[in-house]
């Protein structure tokens, strides 16, 4: 099955060839490297210090070839097993490329939802819809076979010959075996119900690597009804059955899945196609399972035989009351071996008590009963009568002060069917001769053995004269040709028994006894092992329990069988199928509904879980990061070597500077108070200023929120609202005189004076008259303060950068200045000069628009004055200025 890798197809075969090729190339490279190896003894290497001064080098050593090739192989295998295409690239639609497989489940559990005809119609509809999309193949749960056809009618015709098959199908094994036939498919449609027994152990997600799996659901929601079935049938053993009963007694367990009400019915026993017994049963309310005892007179009397086929009996339920929709009919029948043909054992032993515990042979008989034997018990032998030879085993336990003739038969008692003495060497068949207890005199045992063994053998009864104890007995037995059973070989005292053809002579009683090391638990096992060794016990044929096969998975148990005529082909329905449990729909594949012609995906196809690409990416990223780190370390060491630590402080300083440093720059910033624009920005102005001069201006002035002593740290403050400067109760606007805050000589006035003295530059945007201004600043009045004056035409503001002939007035109001300490300290501009320069320009309230270029030039001059005051009075440039002025 090919995999899609991007636009490429690769197959495991191709991969293997690629891997081989890679290995060859690797081997060739290895050879080259090996050839290049050049190892030269240089004694002066001794004087070289270890790698303390030089970075360790990556040394290319030639790896061992085999290990290297193994490494390459494992690497390739890992790559192959772990990588998968991230996204499948679907090929262009080609009817012959899509390969569909319809798998039809003919389990009995399907039959409870859909009739055979409807099932076939559903399959036909599915097939019809798929046949146009590509190649369709079919398979059923009957056997391991895939049908290829060109027309759905062919498949349908084949299906018409099929019926529901036996119970017990598990899809996992069935699909696996079907796929193992070499089917090349990319879509699998499973026509089945949601039966838990069918779906359990089927990991269909695993198939998604090869094909999409869909469920064509046959199940219908069930309304009432349920399943009634025979769960088990078990024949009672001889000891379990009623004493003296000659009939077959069975315990039949009937179960149901539906509501617990009174329920009645007839249980029929069918033997050789004849109903031999009918038993009315009634399930009590509230019971889900109940056991009924059924017995019938054994007719015909079963014959004990190990040969031939094993007859079976069939139990079936009929005539239910009340009538319910019994959803699986197959499990109303139950097959069981009719093991009335059981093995017979004759036990000859004197019974020493009524209670089983008092009977020394009680545990032995219980063991035999458990194993499924029937037993006939005699206290002694009627010497005159002919022995019945139909039994399989004769167990003789004697020696307890009884003469051998009383408990021991002779070979003469065995007659042919014709009545003449038999010539059989072992006419008595299998015989176990055991002492009844440990206290017996072995003399009679010895005589009994003499009667059992052929007369012409090595054993003479006269030898029994001296046999009285167990020690004598175990000495005698090997001497007359007995073969040891049990114990250490050659150690006579350990021997459990000695074996003469068909006769087993025990050296100890067959009863649990501590001194013999034979416990109640060991005895049945010992007996079973002995019987198995003698060929008298076969587990399958003799067990009374119903071990009729229940094929939980016919795909596992029967698909590969060739002998389909074997009677074991009839099977009971597995309990898992009878109890009608269904799978949760989240555990099922997406459901395909051919009749509605759409695909109902109930389960999202999650492919991101097994996508290795993110992990591969992560690994590569880690690899790159580690390489980068190593490179950095290498660079660091190189730098260290070059600078030899002498320049280390410099490097550290440079590094710290790089981390913490900032570009040093100087920008002119002034504070603005009272401007109504909250986001005052003068970016364009700053750009103009920096383009025209060498001065960098901040793109937004610093906003002064309150005028007080602490705000007078900025060297240049632009006050748009004069009210911030004066005491609130002294209005100026109303023609009042107004006075500075803190006047006459308060804190603020004092601070302002000090600030001006330090070089502060104040710009007021106000249209106050000269007198008002004078009044405002009167408290500053010291010798250094000159009166407010209009700026004369030869003022430095007119020529500090641009040569200006006049300053823009506003409705007749002109610019005034207050000289302080021989320089312009306070400038009063009669209108909103800053508003006319900012990014979002406002028309000044003067009624006429200002010339932008003009205003900018004035601002440049202003900034020059603010920074350099009257530097041109140095008169260095005077000749040039005069020349220009002319």
């Amino acid at each position, binding site marked *: 099955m090919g995999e899609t890798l991007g636009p490429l197809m690769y197959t495991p075969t191709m991969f293997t060839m690629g891997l081989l090729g890679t290995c060859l190339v690797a081997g060739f490279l290895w050879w080259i490297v090996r050839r290049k190896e050049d190892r*030269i003894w240089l*004694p002066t290497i001794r*004087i070289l210090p270890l790698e303390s001064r030089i970075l360790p080098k990556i040394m290319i050593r030639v790896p061992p070839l085999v290990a290297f090739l193994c490494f390459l192989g494992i690497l390739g295998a890992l790559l192959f097993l772990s990588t998968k295409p991230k996204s499948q690239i679907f090929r262009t639609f080609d009817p012959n490329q899509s390969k569909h497989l319809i798998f039809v489940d003919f389990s009995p559990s399907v039959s409870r939802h859909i009739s055979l005809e409807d099932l076939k119609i559903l399959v036909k509809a599915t097939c019809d819809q798929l046949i146009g999309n590509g190649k369709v193949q079919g398979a059923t749960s009957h056997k391991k076979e895939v049908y290829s056809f060109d027309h759905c009618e062919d498949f349908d015709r084949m299906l018409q010959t099929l019926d529901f098959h036996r119970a017990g199908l598990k899809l996992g094994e069935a699909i696996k075996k079907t796929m193992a036939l070499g089917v090349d498919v990319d879509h699998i449609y499973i026509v089945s119900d949601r039966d838990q027994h069918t779906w359990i152990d089927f990991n269909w997600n695993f198939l998604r690597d090869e094909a999409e799996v869909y469920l064509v659901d046959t199940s219908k929601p069930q309304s009432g009804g349920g399943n009634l079935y025979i769960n088990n049938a078990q024949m009672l053993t001889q000891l379990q059955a009623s004493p003296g009963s000659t009939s077959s007694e069975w315990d039949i367990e009937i179960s149901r899945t539906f509501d617990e009400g009174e329920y009645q019915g007839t249980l029929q026993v069918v033997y050789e196609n004849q109903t031999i017994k009918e038993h009315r049963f009634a399930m009590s309310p509230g019971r889900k399972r109940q056991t009924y005892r059924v017995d019938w007179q054994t007719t015909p009397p079963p014959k004990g035989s190990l040969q031939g086929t094993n007859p079976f009996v069939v139990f079936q339920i009929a005539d239910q009351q009340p009538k319910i929709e019994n959803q699986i009919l197959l499990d109303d029948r139950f097959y069981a071996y009719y093991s009335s043909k059981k093995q017979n054992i004759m036990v000859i032993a004197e019974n020493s008590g009524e209670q089983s515990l008092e009977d020394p042979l009680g545990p032995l008989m219980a063991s035999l009963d458990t194993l499924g034997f029937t037993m006939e018990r005699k206290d002694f032998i009627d010497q005159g009568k002919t022995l019945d030879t139909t039994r399989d085993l004769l167990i003789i336990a004697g020696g307890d002060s009884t003469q051998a003739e009383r408990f021991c038969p002779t070979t003469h008692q065995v007659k042919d069917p014709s009545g003449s003495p038999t010539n059989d060497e072992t006419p008595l068949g299998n015989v176990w001769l055991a002492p009844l207890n440990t206290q017996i005199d072995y003399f009679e045992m010895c005589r009994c053995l003499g009667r059992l063994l052929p007369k012409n053998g090595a054993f003479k009864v006269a030898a029994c004269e001296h046999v009285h104890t167990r020690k004598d007995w175990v000495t005698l037995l090997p001497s007359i040709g007995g073969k040891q059973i049990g114990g250490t070989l050659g150690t006579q005292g350990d021997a459990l028994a000695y074996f003469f053809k068909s006769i087993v002579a025990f050296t100890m009683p067959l009863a649990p006894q501590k001194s013999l090391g034979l416990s109640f638990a060991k005895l049945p096992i010992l007996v079973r092992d002995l019987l198995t060794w003698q060929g008298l016990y076969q587990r399958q044929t003799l067990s009374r329990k119903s071990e009729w096969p229940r094929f939980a998975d016919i795909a596992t148990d029967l698909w590969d069988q060739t002998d389909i005529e074997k009677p074991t082909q009839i099977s009971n329905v597995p309990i898992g199928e009878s109890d009608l449990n269904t799978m949760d729909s989240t555990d099922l594949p997406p459901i395909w509904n051919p009749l509605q012609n759409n695909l109902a995906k109930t389960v999202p196809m999650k492919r991101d879980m097994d996508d290795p690409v993110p992990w591969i990416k992560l690994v590569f990223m880690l690899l790159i990061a580690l390489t980068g780190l190593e490179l950095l370390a290498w660079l660091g060491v190189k730098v260290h070597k070059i600078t030899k630590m002498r320049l280390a402080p410099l490097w550290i300083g440079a590094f710290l500077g790089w981390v913490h440093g900032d570009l040093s720059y100087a920008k002119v910033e002034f504070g603005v108070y009272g401007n109504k624009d909250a986001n005052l920005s003068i970016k364009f102005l700053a750009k103009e200023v920096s383009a025209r001069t060498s001065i960098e201006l901040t793109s937004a002035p610093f906003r002064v929120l309150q005028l007080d002593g602490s705000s007078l740290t900025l060297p240049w403050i632009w006050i748009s609202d004069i009210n911030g400067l004066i005491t609130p109760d002294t209005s100026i606007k109303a023609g009042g005189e107004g006075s500075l805050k803190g006047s006459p000589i308060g804190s603020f006035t004092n601070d302002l004076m000090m600030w001006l003295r330090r070089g502060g530059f104040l710009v007021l945007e106000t249209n106050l008259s000269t007198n008002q201004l004078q009044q405002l600043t009167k408290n500053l009045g010291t010798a250094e303060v000159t009166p407010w004056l209009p700026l004369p035409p030869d003022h430095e503001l007119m020529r500090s950068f641009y040569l200006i002939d006049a300053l823009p007035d506003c409705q007749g109001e002109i610019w005034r200045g207050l000289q302080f300490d021989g320089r312009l300290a306070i400038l009063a501009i009669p209108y909103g000069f800053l508003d006319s320069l900012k990014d979002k320009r406002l028309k000044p309230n003067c009624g006429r628009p200002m010339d932008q270029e003009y205003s900018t030039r004035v601002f440049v001059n202003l900034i020059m004055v603010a920074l350099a005051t009257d530097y041109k009075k140095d008169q260095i440039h005077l000749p040039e200025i005069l020349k220009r002025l002319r």
Partner: protein
Amino acid sequence: MTKGNALETAEKKATLASLTPDLGEDLHSSFLKASSKPMGSFLNPLRRPSRLIETTRLYSPGDPIQAIDWRAFARTDQLLIRQVRDESTAKVLIGIDLSESMNWPPEDLKQRSLANTVPKKSEIALRIGFFLGSLHLKMGDEVQIWAVVKDRDLSPSARLQPKSITELRQLFTELETERFNGTLTSRVFHQAHLERTRHDLGYWIGDGLGDADFKLFLGFARKQLMLHLLSSLEADISWVSSQALYYDETHIKKQYLGHTLLENQWYQKELDHWREDIRKSLNHTNASYFLVTNDTRIDLFTKMIFDYFKSLNVSSNVGAS
């Protein structure tokens, strides 16, 4: 150009690889010896003061007081020492390191074309040793040549005590014929135990890489000269290919790739450091140090030996006894 000049030029170009004891004849120069008597080369300045003085010099602290010319002191108020140059038979110790590391370059390296002309260090050491021995025998000295023949020996355990120049030259001819074979060398030298007796002159010829303690050996002599002998392939590793692996597994298992050795002249720097360390450590014992290789020219080598002798005579001080 005369024939003699041509020979002279060829001799100038000759290296230590062709040094023989015979060349020592030309060293018997008058300025090395005070007299023409073949009594020895070692100057004995400790004669009692006599009227037959040769030179006088100012007293320097440490000089024996009995050597002071008190009469002259009475005349001149200056402490003067009278010196008489005389010569006596010197006891000369020559140590040759023939241990494993001297057996280099090995045959497999010699098979490479780059090293097929370079003789082993042991051969050069023997040549120098026999040359020096011949030189001193000719000047009338007693010469013992000791050799370290076992790898782990700290001091030499084999000795050659030539009675005459002829014997020495004969042995050398044998060695040269056998291409300085190791087995022959062990026949020429005989097992002996080096005793702690004073000698006048001591030479050590070795590469300093083995276990032999040359400082201990040189300590047996008053005047010491270390001739540090390296192969020209060791002194200059420009022949090293950068991808090959170079190793020495004798003591510490070390190996380096060629480009590691060549990088930043690491090898060369370490070699220089090492030589400097040896030289400094020898200075503590007043020993002299010279580096020689198989590429050292004979004329330069003999000049070096001349200069060494001269320095011995000039600086021979009174207190040396």
